[in-house]
């Protein structure tokens, strides 16, 4: 009964109702869009990093601190006996890092040379292209970002200076075998990929590694003396921290949008209580308690959001479909910042549970905002209401 009356009043309210519903729907469309963007961005970043660098996990040499480049030099250790079978089976991919100076076109740049087994299949990295080389030239693969910063192109020859495990510097001539599109920025920016055997030879040690990429989940969490398991949470800590920071801005944005929608609903309901006081008096005369009358008005306001929620997929469909199929392309130049997930077009996926949660929260907010003007009803004398008087 109350629902029917509230519904009829909304319909009877005509344009004002329509405007409220559209305002709510627009706010929700923006919120769904933002929710989908963050969700899809994070999923894309995770997928890229997993495909190109993390695999099913990582075992990192204990002294290696990714935030301290000076640790790279010595952050390697021989393959522990308990991992030898995994390495031999290809379930563990040893990667060796070596800080280096490179000299493209005579300029000097710092870089990290990364040795990866040619036959590995745990990562999407096309390591099979890293052959032994000929004519004294070591073939290397670099990403587009590295190519841009070093101005190296496919076929370019340049020198790399690396220190071996005895502290002696050695220089090699390398040729850019191919400039790859590497969506994971940590595998691209400042990275030069070479055949692991070649790098080990230069370093002067045959079985050392800086980290292992896990290709088979059975090695997750394994403990060895020199290598430490890096779980997903630790590996993506920066990404998740960045997401947390973005979330704060997102919440602020949401709050602003919701505030605007709530103002519209509050205004409508406050006006309704004022304009319909004779109706309030009539309802009281018919035997409605003040709580029930307040419920009618609260429900009316809440229905605006309910209808707004229904209108959201309808009005927002073109936008949602466009970003779901064409995607959100990060403006050119942003991918140079090395932010995870920024190198590819983000195809939106819509996290239904999160979106429903947002809708539920907005419904609760609307109910509160719609209830606020009804407090006046509690103070309204039915006789005054019937006369159309208000305090």
């Amino acid at each position, binding site marked *: *009964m109350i629902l029917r*009356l509230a519904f*009829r*009043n909304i*319909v*009877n309210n005509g344009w004002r109702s329509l405007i409220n519903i559209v305002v709510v729907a627009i706010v929700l469309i923006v919120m769904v869009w933002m929710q989908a963007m963050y969700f899809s961005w994070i999923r894309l970043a995770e997928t890229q990093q997993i495909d190109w660098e993390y695999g099913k996990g990582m075992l990192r040499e204990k002294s290696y601190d990714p935030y301290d480049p000076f640790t790279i030099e010595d952050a390697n250790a021989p393959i522990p006996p308990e991992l030898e079978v995994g390495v031999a089976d290809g379930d563990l991919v040893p990667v060796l890092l070596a800080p280096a100076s490179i000299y493209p076109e005579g300029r000097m740049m710092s870089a990290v040379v990364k040795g990866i087994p040619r036959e590995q299949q745990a990562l999407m990295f096309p390591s099979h292209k890293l052959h032994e080389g000929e004519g004294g030239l070591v073939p290397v693969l670099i990403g587009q970002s590295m190519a841009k910063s070093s101005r190296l192109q496919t076929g370019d020859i340049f020198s790399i200076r690396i220190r071996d495990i005895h502290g002696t510097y050695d220089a090699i001539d390398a040729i850019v075998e191919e400039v790859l599109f590497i969506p994971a920025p940590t595998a691209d920016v400042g990275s030069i990929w070479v055949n692991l055997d070649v790098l080990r030879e230069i370093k002067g040690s045959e079985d050392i590694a800086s980290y292992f990429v896990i290709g088979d989940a059975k090695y997750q969490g394994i403990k060895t003396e020199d290598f430490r398991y890096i779980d997903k949470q630790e590996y993506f800590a920066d990404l998740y921290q960045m997401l947390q920071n973005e979330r704060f801005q997102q919440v602020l944005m949401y709050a602003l949008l919701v505030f605007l929608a709530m103002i519209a609903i509050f205004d409508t309901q406050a006006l309704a209580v004022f304009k319909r006081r*004779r*109706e309030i*008096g*009539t309802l*009281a*005369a*018919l*035997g*409605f*308690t*003040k709580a029930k009358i307040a419920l009618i008005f609260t429900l009316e306001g809440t229905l605006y959001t309910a209808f707004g929620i229904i209108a959201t997929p309808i009005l927002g469909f073109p936008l949602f479909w466009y970003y779901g199929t064409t995607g959100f392309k990060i403006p050119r130049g942003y991918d140079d910042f090395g932010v995870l997930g920024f190198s590819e077009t983000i195809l939106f996926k819509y996290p239904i549970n999160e979106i429903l949660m947002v809708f539920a929260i907005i419904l609760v907010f609307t109910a509160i905002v719609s209830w606020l003007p009804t407090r006046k009803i509690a103070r309204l*004398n*039915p*006789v005054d209401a*019937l006369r159309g008087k208000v305090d």
Partner: protein
Amino acid sequence: MKEVIAITKNMSKAFPTGEGDFWALKGISLEFARGEFSGFVGPSGSGKTTLLNILGSLDTPTKGEVEVLGHKIHQISPRQASYLRSQHIGFIFQTYNLLPVYNVYENVEFPLLLLKMDAAARDKAVRDAIAWVGLTDKIKSRPNQLSGGQCQRVAIARAMVKKPDLVLADEPTANLDTENSMNILDTMQTLNRELGTSFIFSTHDPKVIGYLKRIIRLIDGEVASDDIAPGL
């Protein structure tokens, strides 16, 4: 001896004003029996509507006692008052006060929704009430599609549909022409006779006064006279 359904004992009502209290009703003592067709008559400001509102539990007295259908209005809580109105009292207003978003059927049905009747019984009661007031052909019409007389008939049907013990009608013919007023009054008189519902009016319309069986004349908040209509 007829059952008393409402009684006031030395009841007064004051409204605060900037210059102290204004006493709208002073020492009113009255009794109303079941099945009465009575009314408060008097000029504007004589306290008719105030007295009607108190009897309808929409307001409470400042002094004295009022008992309606066993409920002490001078002590009643808002929730009990709502219950009393929803179960036992029907109101008819000068301005009809129909819900504009509902059609005739829904307006008449509305009070029954508080009574938890089953759907079939409710439907029958609504259709009967609409038939009493002769608006069966307008059942789907909205108030804005009806004349003033028709709206007041809907209001009567809404007041009568739950077969209340008491109907309070505040200037029910004030916005109606003579023909419509007579029709409305005939309808109410018939319902009073056939269903035994008590009617109490507040009016200064001579047409209504002509129908009343008991005329209580109020002047400046006091009962000036309480008479049985001539010829009864």
